[in-house]
């Protein structure tokens, strides 16, 4: 039997981000590794059901109001942002991305202490994140070395390829190439 490791997955609070992690997490789980998911409270029970260990954290004081996290939060924020979606992409940055990131940063700040506690309790050999913003509790090597005896590697998963390079026409298709105009 080969050596078993502990993997800590910490995706951004969104279905797509968690799903991006699941494919890899399932493979690791099936090979007998210990796989832990650190997620906001709104995910409670959903990952345990699939054979993963859950470490939950709060993202705000208003957590009891379900519209403050998870799918309900995305739903409400997207409903609010809808008018801007059809606008030029720079307006999408101003009117959609900035408010979402402001909220995400608040959540990162709010959960910092608990995330450090989770890392220290779980003692992962590897941390896997799906984020675009820096999370010191998960990504800072100096501090992590003190918490984890032998951190092996850290994966960063990004399921949004469009952010990795130019992404053409995700929000708006001003003029479709001829071959699609059927």
């Amino acid at each position, binding site marked *: 039997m080969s050596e078993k490791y502990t993997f800590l997955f910490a995706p951004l609070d969104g279905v797509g981000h968690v799903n991006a992690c699941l*494919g*890899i997490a399932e493979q690791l789980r099936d090979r007998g590794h210990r796989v832990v998911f650190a997620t906001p409270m709104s995910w409670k029970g959903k990952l345990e059901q699939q054979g993963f260990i859950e470490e939950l954290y709060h993202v705000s004081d208003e957590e009891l109001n379900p519209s403050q996290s998870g799918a309900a939060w995305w739903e409400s924020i*997207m*409903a609010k942002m809808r008018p801007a979606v*059809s606008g030029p992409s720079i307006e999408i940055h101003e009117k959609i991305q900035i408010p979402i990131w402001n909220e995400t940063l608040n959540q990162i700040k709010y959960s910092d202490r608990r995330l450090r506690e989770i890392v220290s309790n779980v003692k992962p050999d590897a941390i896997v994140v799906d984020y675009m913003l820096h999370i010191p509790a998960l990504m*800072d090597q100096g501090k992590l070395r003190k918490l984890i005896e032998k951190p092996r590697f850290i994966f960063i998963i990004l399921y949004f390829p469009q952010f990795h390079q130019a992404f053409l026409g995700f*929000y708006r298709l001003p003029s479709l190439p001829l071959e699609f105009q*059927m």
Partner: protein
Amino acid sequence: MNVPPALSGYATDGDRTIWKIYDDKLKEVYGDFFKELNDWVQEHGGPTLNFNFPFLMKYSPYANIYMYPIELDYTSLRPNPPNWHQFDAFVRNGNETFEIPEKLRSGPGKLIYFSLGTIGCVDVELMKRLIKILGKSPNRFIVSKGKALDNFLQFILNR
């Protein structure tokens, strides 16, 4: 950079002076947010971040992976940095099963799942237009509608 700014929608063979204008505008739009993030990260033991939009983070020194079909990737214009790995898909088994509706099981062409994700699908007009265009294709589509289009999924059978 040999590719247009992320999320700009500009073509790879477009006017590069516009790319620069867009990049500058991005720095302006994200200026306050980036400063707040950077200050807080440093106060909490993190590094000084560079404005490398849209990744306002330090990449992993060990392994970074991203999902994008290789056929559509931009690696001919922009080779991947060290420790970056491309995957066509992140396939998961999950614990739910999805039954393909009877009327979609057979028919001409391929069966294709189509989704624009969280943000794209709230643009109802865009989605309607795309569905109309997809409807003219010889293939069968399952379109992820999102909340804005009332129900979760719409099934379109082409003939």
